[in-house]
């Protein structure tokens, strides 16, 4: 398990038979970097306006936690997370 490969995509598949078949591939490394950039940017404005304890610092800590979660998701490696099959629809969430 220590050699487990990091996952790159979070795939969300939604299939409604005879209507549509959607696949959302979420590129995790890109999302991680974007979160980091946005967090740096907000941290800068927080420092400029010296707004400790404001909604800005709440957003900052949320973005940081989001980044931690993304890294944890990536470290899980390829796996099937959610699979829901009903006569009306099929939803699959997996890491690849």
């Amino acid at each position: 398990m220590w050699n487990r490969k990091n996952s790159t995509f979070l795939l969300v598949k939604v299939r409604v038979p005879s209507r549509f078949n959607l696949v959302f591939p979420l590129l995790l490394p890109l999302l991680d970097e974007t979160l980091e950039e946005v967090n740096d940017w907000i941290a800068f404005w927080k420092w400029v306006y010296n707004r400790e304890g404001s909604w800005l610092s709440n957003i900052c800590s949320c973005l940081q936690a989001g980044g931690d979660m993304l890294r944890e998701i990536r470290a899980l490696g390829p796996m099937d997370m959610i699979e829901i099959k009903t006569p009306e629809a099929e939803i699959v969430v997996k890491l690849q």
Partner: protein
Amino acid sequence: MSSDKLKILEMIQEGKISTAEGLELLQALDITNKDTRSTSDKDRNFRVKVDGDKTKVNVNIPLSLIRVASKFLGMGMNFIPAQARDEMNKQGIDLSQIDFNELVSLIEQGLTDGKLVDVEVEDPQEGKMTVQVYVE
């Protein structure tokens, strides 16, 4: 103190092994315990299984991810408007009292081999259904 550690200490007391050997054994035991703890935490999953004639649900979320997500949820509470929070407080709901870390710890500790939910239902539309929530 674990029974293994106690046994090592007894062996030292009885003179079966030297103090240095005993110390080495204790250190080795600590390393083994740490390894098994980290492995089990990483490999254990929170699972939800619904098995019916028409519906099938399979949810598989690692506990390590739930632990990180709980931190995220705790922070998300800060975004609830003050007015809504006051309203909830009046109803006796205090969101700041929810300790997500403790919730995850309870799941980890209390469910070493047990199931949270194991129900079998007979639905007129869906037919026979089994719902299982467990940590594996």
